[in-house]
């Protein structure tokens, strides 16, 4: 992997002047992922409707210093697969230099990826297109006002999984999308966090280097939706890894590997992560003590399961 100094020579593919919130995790995720493409690589970008897309493409401005396409909410993967298909067809027709190498990347939030975009993503991964799909997971449909998604953690407040007298936030556990992607037998699927940029960039480098589909699920805090301090975005993303709330791992040609940083080898109690955000504050009321324990158990079991898959018993 390139050093941070070497990486700093890569011109930003996401430039300033976008309208994402101060402290937005999604923009950090994009900047770090794009570093993994390498300085001299031509990249074509697609993006699903969502915070990232609306804030970076308010006409006549674009914050993308690459060719860019936005189509709709659920089809970033299908759209980029069409771009890639045309590239192949045009090369075969002799209209594009056969030596020209392009990388095709699609970004989508958890809304446009886990839920409405799942079919289109699954299809693109199954067909084996030479694309990288990056999900910036902030755990809700943020752009439309913090509604729950299947990535919203259990017990989290959201505007459509409210906290009230008979319900303490979202009842369901979040879906394990990275495992679903690995089950497509793609060459590379990985889970990363902007709290550990080195692990993320290394994974992005692998994703871009792969011939075939690659999937990155990137933990990207949303200060607005999570009710937390925007200055702590990176720190909270780190804490997610250090409490095993968001384990970091990769599945490379079917081989599972945890990439847990040294500091996170002994996970801290998940409550340390939860208490940094207002969306979880109700979990610390006495009546929700049992739910808090269940959440810790979910985290422990999931992490134990990952260790088994990774042969780390």
């Amino acid at each position, binding site marked *: 992997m390139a050093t941070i100094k070497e990486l700093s020579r890569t011109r930003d593919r996401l430039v300033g002047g976008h309208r994402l919130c101060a402290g937005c995790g999604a923009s950090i995720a994009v900047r770090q992922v794009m570093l993994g493409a390498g300085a001299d690589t031509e990249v074509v970008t697609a993006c699903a409707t969502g915070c990232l897309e609306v804030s970076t493409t308010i006409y006549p401005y674009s914050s993308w210093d690459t060719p860019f396409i936005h189509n709709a909410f659920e089809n970033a993967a299908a759209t980029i697969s069409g771009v890639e298909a045309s590239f192949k067809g*045009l090369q075969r027709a002799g209209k594009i230099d056969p030596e020209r190498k392009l990388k095709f990347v699609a970004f989508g939030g958890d809304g446009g990826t886990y839920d409405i975009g799942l079919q289109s993503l699954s299809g693109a991964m199954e067909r084996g297109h030479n694309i990288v799909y990056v999900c910036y997971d902030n755990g809700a449909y943020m752009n439309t006002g913090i509604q729950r998604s299947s990535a919203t953690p259990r017990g989290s407040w959201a505007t459509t999984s409210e906290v009230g007298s008979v319900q303490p936030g979202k009842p369901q556990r979040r879906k394990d999308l990275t495992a679903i992607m690995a089950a497509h037998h793609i060459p590379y699927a990985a889970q990363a966090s902007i709290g550990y940029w080195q692990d993320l960039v290394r994974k992005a480098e692998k994703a871009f280097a792969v011939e075939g589909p690659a999937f990155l699920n990137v933990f990207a805090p949303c200060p607005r939706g999570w009710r937390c301090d925007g200055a702590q975005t990176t720190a909270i993303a780190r804490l997610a890894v250090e409490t095993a709330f968001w384990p970091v791992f990769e599945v490379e040609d079917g081989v599972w590997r945890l990439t847990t940083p040294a500091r996170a080898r002994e996970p801290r109690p998940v409550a340390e992560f939860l208490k940094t955000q207002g969306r979880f504050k109700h979990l610390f009321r006495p009546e929700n003590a049992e739910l808090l324990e269940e959440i810790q158990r979910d985290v422990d079991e999931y992490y134990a399961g990952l260790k088994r898959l990774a042969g780390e018993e």
Partner: protein
Amino acid sequence: MTDTTPTAVVGAAAVDLSAVEQRTIASTGNLFVAEAFRQIDPDAVCAYPITPQTTIVEEFAKFVANGRVHTEYVTVESEHSAMSATIGASAAGGRAFTVTSSQGLALMWEELHIASGLRLPIVMINANRAISAPINIHGDHSDVMGARDSGWIILMAENAQEAYDNTIIATRVAEAARLPVMPTLDGFITTHSIARGQVADDATVKAFVGEYVPDDSLLRSTSPVMVGAFANLGPTYMKVKKAERDAIDASLPIIGEVGAQWASVIGRDYGHVESYGVDDADLVVVIMGSAAGNVRAVVRRLREQGQRVGVVKVRTYRPFPAADLAAAVSGARAIAVLDRAESFGAPAGPLALDTLAALYGAGIQVPVRSYLYGLGGADVRLDLVEQVYADLADVADDGDGLLNPTPRYLGIR
């Protein structure tokens, strides 16, 4: 920074007329279309199967497997992804085609508007089929009517020959008008029946459609482009839609021009509307698609009995050729518009509504009757068509108001 005018971009096709060869084949409408696809050899086809278009995508798959096309063929997992991927492929600068029908067309509805809003020259064949519910796989126009406001150019084929010709014409029209084009053919009746028709030689088709020269493609190596931006609050959206309206209006002469060029190559005329027996006709039927042939058969029979009747077939449906239609029916004393789709809740069927607007615009005020026929592939018996002319005869003489409020269902009590 202006959109180029139609006459500037529809240059002559580079066809050597002395080398044109046509051969007559007997095949299904779908296979005629598949053959046109093969000859055009697009850069990408991203498609999903649905009855009754399946034999197109299957035949094309054989071309791909045998290396007869250079096309990158993407077997997507749904029609929504079919149009999504086709949009990506077209924005990338490739010639991107697809095919669908009915539920598939409905599933990709938001993408139709995106394709036209992004002004992409996509060609999509639609096998016209009934829209659920109830589910019915046979031919009618209810699917295509759901797309009539989407900004797509829509061409209605009567038969396999027209389906073949329209596909080739559509390729150049789309690229000249910077709008997506939907050539259609009726489900089962045209898609699956075997008909005789002529196909041109590969070199002629290739020369006619020429090379696609994209504006602002994603894959160009300099000056990267942004496609699909957010038109924030203010008049931006409306200005861009006005540009789209201007473009589709300007496409009518483009369609005529390209159609005329193809006609000079293969000897089959293209008319936005095609009239039969209207010169002296009192009673005229307006119709689209395969049943036009049924009506022509009845016109011939009634004319032999001395009745002055005629039929106008609309071939270019969007943009609607209002002036041409009004001119074709200008002598009529009563007009029946036969729709193979409903516009539920509207005063008349969809084609009838367009016709009424065209008549009103031309100052033609005669009784108009709206009929629904052949829904879900129901038979279009000749006696039903004769009944229409009989109704018109009553109406023309006595006058029952200009527009009877309820569309009448032919053959259903």
